[in-house]
Structure formats: structure tokens, C-alpha cells
């Protein structure tokens, strides 16, 4: 492993702006611990899953908020609870199955038992054990189950998406997302029943923020992703909008397909392949859907934990789970809608070949993130240059800008320097 001399004190910004991000923001273990505390464990809502993953009472799913393991479960009354996966007795991570159905949670070590909402409901030998007419041991007289529940997270759901927070004082989810981005959230999750299509899981050896940046970066798709530019799925001269919430932490990149194959300045790039055609065009058998309302792709970043993807007919959530400052696990949940026709289902599955850890398009992103981290580690005193479209932060009606990245770091500084 590479050493790094970076310590938080090393973090130096060249100005009050955020167009030049210090590499140390990606390489410092101490800063990472501070990020977990300020972005994942306090003041923010983190994605934990989709309601459709736990349709029935007793269904549960083990997942993570930041680097902390949590369990999301559906109560008998249909409500959803999220508890931390740490036993109140002696701290064991009691739930290891990743999904299933339970009436209650039992910790294997000493069988302390919890209701799905985290309440402690059973402690073996709590009042001792009778032996030869005498009662031995047991918990102290003042022991009260109520004092020893699992850590319960606040839960909010909208349109079938479940968020949780360790912070009891976190603002309401709708305020957190803000009206501008909420519009695009609701466009995708309008209350329709979802159908889970399956998962992809990858570990990307780069700082977790690089994935947020990647999806706030409309500069790269037309240059890095040959398929996008060649088939016009994403080009710098496509009609586009970039929108942020009031604090610039969340964003939506809205793009409308066009100019497929057409030459022009944006195709004067090496990644544009004039002659490229598919031997089997079914990969790109795209059929517009009413709910799109125009845009063919909307990529929504909800800071810090999730990306909502709509790329033509492929829809998914992408869950960011940090693993130290230099890596994160990236969990893709592909879904469709309960009323999809068989053709549309097959179409979504075929287009899934473009995304995920081996996707014709998305594999690129994981690779450039890994190599960005490599660059940061070898030069921790340096900084990036995110000045396309200027140095300010503002919504835009085109894709030739890195403003969303600057916006994310304006928010980052606001929170980390508080």
C-alpha cells in the first residue's frame, strides 16, 4: 500500500472557490472519518433500499449507511423500520443474512431478542435460573429492556424509495432533497409499483466522492463513452439542463438524445467512431416511455449516498457504501415497473448490458475513478482543476461545464469547515 503524508492540516484551498479541489480531500483517512460523521451519520438522509425489496411483513434486507451495517425491515403494519446491526448486549453484528423474513431478530451469541422495530423483547435468564430451590444470577434488578433497544434510525419513504438517518434532528426528506431535484425524483418514482430485476455489486478502489463527481460531470460522457457519443445517447451538443438544490449538494443532469452519428465539433473527438455499427442492434432497441416527458436520460445525484439512473429504458439505483478513504462498494439495483410489458422488461434487461461493472458504458467510469485515486495518492499536495464553464456555481442549460462538481464542493466546504 502506498503511504500518504496527508493529514487534515494539509488541506489547502487556493481560494474561497471550489474549482480547484485539493487531492488531500480524497487521500486523508482523518478527513474521511470526519466526512462519515458529518455527511453520513448526522444531518443527512441516506439511501437504504426500495420498498419493493421487502414487500411482505417480516421481510428484511441488510445494507449499510456509510460504513455502518443496518437492517431495513417491514413491520406487520406495513411500516418500514431501520435499526443498526449491533447487539445491545455485547455488540455483535447479529444479522448476517442479507435478506429474508423474520418475526424478530435473535442475536446468536446469547439470544437476546429484538422486535423488528429494534425493541429488546427477550433476554435469556434475565431473572436468573432456578437451581436446587435457589435463583442464580440474572440481570440487575434495575435492568429495563426499554433502556437497551437497538439503535433505531429515522426512516422516510417516498415513491417506494427508503431513506434512513442516524440523526433524530434531520430535516424532512422533502426539504432535504429540495423542490428542484424532487421534481426529477418524482418523475422516476411517481408511485408506480416497482419490480426488482436484480443486483450488481462492485468494489471501486477510489474515494466515494469520485462517483458523485462522475455523475455530476456532463463533460466526460461524450468523450470517455464511445457508445454514448457515437450513438448520440449523450453528446455535448444534445439538449440538456443541469439543476441543483439550493445548497448545491444534489443535482439532476437532464439530457435529450439527438444527433446520433452526426459529425460536428463534438464528434471531432477520438472516441467518436464514424464507422461503428452493431452486429446485433438489439442492445439499443430504445422505445420512448410516456413518463419521460421528453428527456431521454436523467441522472440524479442525491448526496452523499445514492445515484438514480434513467438512461433511456434502463432504470436503477446505485448505492454508495464507503470502505475507507480509498474505496467504496457500489451496489446497483435494477428495476422495472409492475406494468411493464414482456417486451419492455426484455428491453430493460438488454440495455442493462450498457451499465454496471461490465457495462459497455459504465465499466469506463469505475476504471477512471480508480486511476484518479492513483493520481491523487502519488501527489497528495496537488489539486484538481474543475473550471470548465467557469469557476462559479449555477444551474446551466448545457453540458459544457463542471459547475455541479464545484457546487458539491461548495457544500462540502460549508459542512466540513463549520
Amino acid at each position, binding site marked *: 500500500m502506498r503511504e500518504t503524508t496527508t493529514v487534515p492540516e494539509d488541506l489547502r484551498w487556493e481560494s474561497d472557490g471550489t474549482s480547484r479541489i485539493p487531492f488531500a480531500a480524497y487521500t486523508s483517512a482523518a478527513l474521511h472519518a470526519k466526512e462519515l460523521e458529518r455527511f453520513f451519520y448526522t444531518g443527512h438522509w441516506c439511501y437504504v433500499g426500495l420498498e419493493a425489496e421487502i414487500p411482505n411483513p417480516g421481510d428484511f434486507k441488510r445494507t449499510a449507511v456509510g460504513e455502518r451495517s443496518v437492517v431495513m425491515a417491514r413491520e406487520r403494519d406495513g411500516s418500514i423500520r431501520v435499526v443498526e446491526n449491533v447487539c445491545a448486549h455485547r455488540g455483535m453484528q447479529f444479522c448476517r443474512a442479507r435478506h429474508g423474513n423474520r418475526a424478530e431478530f435473535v442475536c446468536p451469541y446469547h439470544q437476546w431478542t429484538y422486535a423488528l422495530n429494534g425493541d429488546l423483547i427477550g433476554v435469556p435468564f434475565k431473572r436468573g435460573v432456578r437451581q436446587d430451590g435457589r435463583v442464580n444470577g440474572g440481570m440487575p434488578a434495575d435492568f429495563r429492556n426499554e433502556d437497551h433497544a437497538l439503535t433505531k434510525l429515522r426512516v422516510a419513504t417516498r415513491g417506494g424509495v427508503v431513506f434512513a438517518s442516524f440523526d433524530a434532528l434531520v430535516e424532512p426528506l422533502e426539504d432535504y432533497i429540495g423542490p428542484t431535484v424532487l421534481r426529477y425524483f418524482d418523475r422516476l418514482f411517481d408511485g408506480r409499483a416497482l419490480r426488482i430485476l*436484480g443486483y450488481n455489486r462492485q468494489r471501486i478502489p477510489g474515494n466515494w466522492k469520485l462517483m458523485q463527481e462522475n455523475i455530476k460531470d456532463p463533460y466526460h460522457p461524450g468523450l470517455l463513452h464511445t457508445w454514448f457519443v*457515437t450513438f448520440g445517447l449523450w453528446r455535448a451538443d444534445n439538449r440538456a439542463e443541469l439543476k441543483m438544490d439550493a445548497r448545491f449538494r444534489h443535482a439532476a443532469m437532464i439530457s435529450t438524445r439527438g444527433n446520433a452519428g452526426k459529425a460536428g465539433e463534438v464528434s471531432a473527438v477520438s472516441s467518436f467512431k464514424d464507422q461503428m455499427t452493431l452486429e446485433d442492434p438489439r442492445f439499443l432497441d430504445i422505445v420512448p416511455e410516456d413518463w419521460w416527458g421528453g428527456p431521454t436520460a436523467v441522472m440524479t445525484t442525491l448526496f452523499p449516498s445514492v445515484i438514480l439512473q434513467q438512461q433511456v429504458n434502463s432504470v436503477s439505483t446505485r448505492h454508495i457504501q464507503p470502505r475507507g478513504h480509498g474505496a467504496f462498494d457500489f451496489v446497483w439495483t435494477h428495476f422495472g415497473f409492475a406494468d411493464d410489458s414482456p417486451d419492455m422488461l426484455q428491453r430493460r434487461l438488454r440495455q442493462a448490458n450498457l451499465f454496471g461493472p461490465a457495462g459497455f458504458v459504465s465499466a469506463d467510469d469505475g476504471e477512471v475513478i480508480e486511476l484518479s485515486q492513483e493520481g491523487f495518492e502519488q501527489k497528495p499536495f496537488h489539486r484538481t482543476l474543475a473550471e470548465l464553464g467557469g469557476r462559479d456555481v449555477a444551474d446551466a442549460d448545457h453540458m459544457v461545464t463542471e459547475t455541479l462538481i464545484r457546487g458539491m464542493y461548495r457544500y462540502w466546504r460549508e459542512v466540513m469547515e463549520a
Partner: protein
Amino acid sequence: MDLRDYVDLGQLYAGYARAVDSGDWDLWPEFFTDVCTYRLVPRENHERGFPLATLSFESKGMLRDRVYGIRETLFHDPYYQRHVVGAPVVRQVVDGRIHSEANYAVFRTKLSELSTVFNVGRYVDEVVRTPAGLRFASRLCIYDSELIPNSIIYPI
């Protein structure tokens, strides 16, 4: 099952492992029939009945499109891969169609790095005899590896 078929089946598997590790990607589609199935599937999706695959191809054309992608369109950090595959177990033969399975491990070596375990799992195959010899009509790669170490670019 006739001994010659048994030998040929073994050679098909061994030849496939050799081909996908050779760096000559054009060899890969030729192990399949024109209409074919190639699916790279997380064991989780397979066992829970989810239809999603990490990669799902339905024709030799799609395999060729993948080869083109590997060579021309997919940016990636280059690596060597090495397949070590167990002997195929023949599950059944239904009018000439061989249903066979084998465990595999794939190791990745990046430039100037150590070799690591990359992807492990099981091939579930359907093999048919063609004028050109045995070919895969269907190859499912059902992988245990819960986390893909960043990306899978080359054929498993």
C-alpha cells in the same frame, strides 16, 4: 456418453480457457453457435430468481460487438486474466445436446502488480455438435464473487 465425445468436451473446455486468456479476443465468439446464450450472472440473482445479468448476450453478433467494445470502445486499465477450470461434469445428454457444468477460478494480474483472485464460479453449459466440432449453444457463468474488483472487461 461415447469416449470420443468425452475427450472432445474436455478439449472444448480447455480450448476455451486458453482462448479467453490469450488476449486474442476474436477467438472467443467462435466457441459458440450463431444463435447462442452467454450470460454472466451473480449467484445471488441466479438463486433468488432475478432476471438481471451482469452481461447477457443472445447471439454471436452480440459477442462480436463485445469484442469490438473490448478493443475499441471500453476504456480500461489493461490486465492479464487466467482461467483455471475443473473437469466438466456431464449432467445429461438429451438427443445429442450435452448438459455439462464445471467450476472455474479466474485470476487477474495488472501491470506491475501481484496476481489476485478475480472471479470464481460455475459454468452451466449446453454443448452441441456442429460440422466444425463441439460448440456452446449456451454458457452461463454463475459467479460466487459478490464484489467485482472494479470491472470485468474481458470474457469469463
